[in-house]
């Protein structure tokens, strides 16, 4: 049974070769995936064009339920984006080096799910063409957005987060892009030459690189926390029962990390399988991720219980009725399913046998994410359905337009990710090397030499080859 996170005696050239290979020659399966994603996206595009032309009526939004799947899915994607930050930033700061083989795709996931999430507030606007009005641009009429609105906080927070996480992803990739540059030909070489920004592995560059990486990590952790608490403020700052909940910020952050980790497990398994990354994305690393996910799941469960208890013992009769209704009303099947998937399902992660079984974990991780999606739907839906004014109570199910757009968003995310894995290294080569380097318990120069030598290299100690003018 594999117990080490990684084989520290792996040849560095193999690392480069394996990762670079994953970026080349897309196979049939890749193209099928691309076509599937494109098909999903076009569903959403058609639905959105229809909605744009007609108005939000076909989305089955109503005067009593003005929000729907769009906002729920927006929160879901925002949540998903938190895992990359978690793995990169927190684990970086606490020197948990097992993050190194898997953080790259997690960060990419962060960026792409943010790019997906950012679409939803736009899609859901009644007048999409005026969406730039939420940005504080200088207008000669002295009109500004309302800085009090959690929605304008969202605009700020998401912009900041998208900028920062994209920078974080990119900067962390620079040494790898240099590797790509050094190994690529043709257009790829030109691309990587530009993107690697002249990286040449100087000690000055590495030194500054280490600083910025740490600083960015320090920025990103509070940023990530703030972003999802701000998203939670969309609800928590409102007056509605079931939304006006003090524990929402931590609850959202925990939920975000939870769904992000579950998504990492999914993508971990997919990448490991399709790109044959078995040597980097190893079972022990998966196990660590699973344990982390389990821990977060328990935090999430706890916060759920806290919310129930606080409502139960609280003085707000309306919120109490709503909670009771969530447990028993027409949303109850979904609510119980969410609790089952979110709180019971993760116990599979605690079982070592299951944890190490990839197909099981794949399915479990999908279910966890379904649970987390349901969680968001259970936040948005029931409150709108049943609130202060009984005359306004209604049950409205989302229409095909909403479903199509939500469905398409997964295609959009997939498409971005598929492009990413073929253009950028989805495993951090230099960091895997670092990991390997630092993991070697005893520094064995002979082993190092054997690892870093190729046949054409001269023998150590013999006359070195010389080049130059």
């Amino acid at each position, binding site marked *: 049974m594999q117990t080490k996170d990684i084989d520290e005696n792996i040849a560095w*050239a193999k690392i480069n070769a394996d990762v670079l290979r994953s970026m080349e020659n897309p196979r049939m399966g890749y193209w099928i995936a691309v076509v599937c994603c494109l098909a999903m996206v076009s569903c959403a595009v058609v639905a959105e064009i229809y909605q744009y032309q007609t108005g939000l009526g076909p989305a089955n939004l109503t005067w009593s339920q003005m929000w729907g799947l769009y906002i729920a899915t927006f929160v879901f994607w925002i949540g998903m984006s938190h895992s990359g930050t978690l793995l990169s930033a927190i684990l970086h700061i606490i020197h948990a080096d097992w993050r190194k083989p898997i953080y790259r795709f997690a960060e990419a996931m962060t960026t792409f799910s943010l790019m997906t999430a950012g679409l939803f507030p736009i899609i859901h606007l009644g007048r999409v063409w005026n969406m730039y009005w939420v940005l*504080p641009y200088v207008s000669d009429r*002295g*009109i*500004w957005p*309302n*800085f009090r609105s959690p929605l*304008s*906080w969202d605009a*700020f927070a998401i*912009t*900041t987060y998208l*900028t920062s996480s994209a*920078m974080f992803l990119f*900067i962390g990739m620079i040494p790898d892009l240099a*590797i790509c540059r*050094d*190994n690529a030909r043709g257009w790829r070489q030109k691309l990587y030459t530009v993107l690697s*920004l*002249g*990286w*040449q*592995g*100087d*000690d*000055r*560059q*590495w*030194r*500054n*690189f*280490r*600083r*910025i990486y740490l*600083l*960015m990590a320090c*920025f990103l952790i*509070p940023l990530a926390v*703030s972003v999802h608490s*701000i998203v939670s403020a969309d609800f928590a700052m409102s007056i509605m029962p079931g939304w006006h909940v003090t524990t929402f910020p931590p609850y959202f952050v925990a939920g975000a990390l939870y769904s992000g980790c579950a998504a990492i497990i999914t993508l971990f398994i997919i990448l490991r399988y399709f790109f044959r990354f078995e040597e980097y994305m190893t079972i022990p690393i998966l196990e660590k991720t699973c344990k982390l996910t389990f821990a977060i799941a328990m935090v999430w469960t706890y916060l759920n219980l806290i919310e129930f208890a606080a409502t139960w013992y609280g003085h707000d009769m309306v919120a109490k009725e709503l909670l009771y209704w969530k447990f028993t009303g027409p949303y109850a099947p979904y609510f119980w399913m969410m609790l089952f998937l979110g709180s019971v399902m993760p116990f599979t992660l605690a079982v070592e046998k299951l944890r190490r079984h990839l197909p099981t974990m794949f399915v479990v991780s999908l279910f966890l994410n379904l649970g987390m999606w349901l969680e968001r739907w259970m936040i948005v839906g029931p409150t709108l359905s049943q609130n202060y004014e009984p005359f306004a109570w209604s049950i409205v199910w989302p229409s095909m337009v909403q479903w199509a757009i939500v469905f398409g968003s997964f295609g959009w995310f997939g498409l971005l990710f598929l492009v990413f894995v073929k253009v950028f290294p989805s495993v951090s080569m*230099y*960091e895997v*090397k*670092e990991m390997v*380097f630092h993991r070697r318990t005893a*520094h064995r*120069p002979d082993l*190092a*030499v054997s690892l*870093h030598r190729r046949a054409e*290299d*001269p023998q*150590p100690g013999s*006359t*070195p*080859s*010389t*080049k*130059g*003018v």
Partner: protein
Amino acid sequence: MKRYYVMGLFSNFEEAFATIAEIRNHAVPGVSVDDVTLKSPIEHPEIEEVLGDRGSPIPKFTLFGAIFGMCFGFLFLASAQATFLVQPQGGKAVIPLPSNIVLTYELLILFGVLSTVIGFLISARLFTRRHPLYSEKVSLDQIGILLELDEKNVNPIKELFGKHKVLEIREEVSQ
């Protein structure tokens, strides 16, 4: 005056570090450890003990960016709110501190991050041409030690490299 550039590539990192340590100890008179540029496929925090603390100005950029973001953020919001009087809403003040704190915080981070990145781009000397002696092996698995030398020091350095089992030596003369 002609300057000579010599780069040795090492597969044995211990030996490479030992080479630098010797240079630091003036194994070759006239060659200082400050002339050494280490090129490496990975980050080596431990080598800084040998190379000496060369410092980095990035935290200063960060600090500046963060403070600027905070001040600018708050004042921008407040002055925008003060001129946009249509905002008095929900019975609250025109310039509400609680919500402005949220956005100030976001702007602090945004400007902090941007400033940090700019600081990095400047101080890491990116956007410069690759050194003529740059070897692709440096991005793979070997360490390069690059020295800028007077002509008299070229051979002693090469010898030093040789002693430490250098794999390859590259050199160049600039006019």
